């Protein structure tokens, strides 16, 4: 089985889905000839041509809006936003249309659309290139939010996202793009949406983390009897897996690189408080970035949760 990094795994998922189904088309800035600024679509332009690998003008709103139209007409568009920080001008299209067309038309029209975007910090890039505002999308019914944490799940999740009948926001942690290699099978396999993965079993504390934080969490929990859960899909969330684990361990640490306030960790903490508070031996604790804008290179590592900060928090929670 080939060892692939996440860029290659996502590329393979796109290639195989495009081979399998001619309804799948890709659109975005620099996705064609250039193969994408991270090379995620490398080689696909040569294989599938300009009709299916659409290099668009620099127009985020029209990229998503046109993809909505394509999806309504029966295609399966995969739109790329070059960096998550540039998705904001497409919010109207995502929130007012992609998320609602099914509802507005009482399912007469649906939007089987994927919006892919590199996201997250720690790559020493310019402003707005390191955002992680995934919670915005989780607040909106009608869109799914998927975040892979490694090559194997990235491929399987993207396949599921493309085949999903509704819009999916697919956020790819840039810091992991080339950091991890894994065995990634060619051919069919799908990692289902809405299903969390227990990455490491344990019985004393549950740690939940997604995207690039998972890699740090795995280092941080070495030596602890910790169960690590990677939700993979933030919305809709796999509450059963998380609650079962927390009822078992009695402790929960939530780690995300998004800013603390209003981050998705708040939703998890509130749900655990409501559904499992009587099982808890320790306060639910969130490790997150502070409530400031993602700083540039010189300070970004002070901003992002570090392995040490995560380990320190797990340690604190274990004292109860």
């Amino acid at each position: 089985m080939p060892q692939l990094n996440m860029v290659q795994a996502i590329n393979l998922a796109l290639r195989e889905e495009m081979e399998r189904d001619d309804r799948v088309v890709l659109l975005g800035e620099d996705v064609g000839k250039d193969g994408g600024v991270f090379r995620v679509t490398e080689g696909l332009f040569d294989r599938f041509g300009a009709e299916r690998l659409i290099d668009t003008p620099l127009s985020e709103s029209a990229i998503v809006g046109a993809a909505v139209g394509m999806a309504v007409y029966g295609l399966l568009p995969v739109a790329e936003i070059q960096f998550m920080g540039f998705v904001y001008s497409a919010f109207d299209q995502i929130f007012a249309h992609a998320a609602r067309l099914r509802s507005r038309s009482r399912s007469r029209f649906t939007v089987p659309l994927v919006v892919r975007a590199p996201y997250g910090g720690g790559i020493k890039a310019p402003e707005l290139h390191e955002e992680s505002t995934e919670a915005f999308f989780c607040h909106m019914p009608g869109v799914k939010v998927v975040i892979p944490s490694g090559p194997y799940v990235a491929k399987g999740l993207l396949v599921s996202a493309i085949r999903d009948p509704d819009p999916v926001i697919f956020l790819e942690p840039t810091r992991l793009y080339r950091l991890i290699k894994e065995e990634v099978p060619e051919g069919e396999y799908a990692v289902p949406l809405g299903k969390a993965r227990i990455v490491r079993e344990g019985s004393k504390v549950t740690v939940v983390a997604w995207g690039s934080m998972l890699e740090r969490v795995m280092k941080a929990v070495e030596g602890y009897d910790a169960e690590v859960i990677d939700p993979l899909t933030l919305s809709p969330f796999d509450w059963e897996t998380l609650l079962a684990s927390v009822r078992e361990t009695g402790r929960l640490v939530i780690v995300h690189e998004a800013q603390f306030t209003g981050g998705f960790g708040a939703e998890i903490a509130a749900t655990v408080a409501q559904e499992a508070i009587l099982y808890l031996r320790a306060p639910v604790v969130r490790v997150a970035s502070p409530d400031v804008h993602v700083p540039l290179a010189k300070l970004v590592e002070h901003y992002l949760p570090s392995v040490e900060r995560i380990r320190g928090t797990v340690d604190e929670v274990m004292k109860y």
Partner: protein
Amino acid sequence: MPEETIATFTVRSLRILDERGKADEALMPPLSEADIRQMYELLVLTRTYDERALALQREGRIGTYPPVKGQEAVQVGSACALFPTDWVVPSFREMGVHFTLGYPLDLMFRYWAGDERGLVTPANLNILPICVSVGTHIPHAVGIAMAAKYRRDPVAVVAYFGDGATSKGDFHEGFNMAGVFQLPVVFICQNNQWAISIPLKGQTASRTLAQKAIAYGFDGVQVDGNDVFAVYRATKDAVEKARSGGGPTFIECLTYRVADHTTSDDASRYRSPEEVAAWREKDPILRLERYMSGRGLWDEGYGAEVKRKATRAVDEAVKAMESAAPPEPGEMFEHVSATLGQRQEKQRFVDHPPAPS
């Protein structure tokens, strides 16, 4: 009523200095020899900074950097036409504008090295911070112009952006509003033919970008962006018109991004070396040297002296950048809002305490 033509339009293009450095004297703006020398020195300074920035990036001493090589004349030529009271709303590839207006080189280096404090515009300059999100700053220029008009201040507001930005909704919304209210704003597009890997024809089906202004009810002109005199003159006309209540102008400057999009890009993946070579021939600095040499204002000795002076300034800026103390972690809390909230206070002083002194 029969079918009839009810609107036609023309787009004018301006070039004063040809590629061999010959000027059309009838079109030459009034510039003294000292003015011309100053323009030349600013062009060389901008290029020297740019070359050093690329070298520093390769050595890991600064971060991702977007080179301006080949576009210096648009930047220096337009900025030379501005008054200190005018306002500038830049995107991210106009370092020549900054330097012409007196923005410190070391500050600019610090920004590209990943230190936000590099964007603290000196108090005597009305330059908004670099805007990374393409085209989204255009409405800000419109709003500043609206406020200046409200205050009856005779200032011009200049927004800079690239050809790619003309595809953003904010470009169209901003242009439209500038036209509706006839605001004192000048839009300057550095049409460098590429937006990363997307050539101009992948960006628009319009014959020119300049003509887009016409649809919004104001003038659009195209100028040779590698001709510092044409850019200066077109900008001077436009800012004077703006300051005196004549409304907005759009100036499309034809130029070329000779280098990669940024240090993270490899332009050889999507464009031919022949195309790049052809544009190198049209180099704006070379062109001005030819002109000046024809007038006896330039020789090798003078050229070398200007380069030495620029190199010294850049050397000093690098030294200043590298001797600046790195930001404290607490710095990231300093400017989020005028005051910190309760949780931010805790995050700042408990979770991210200042280093013990």
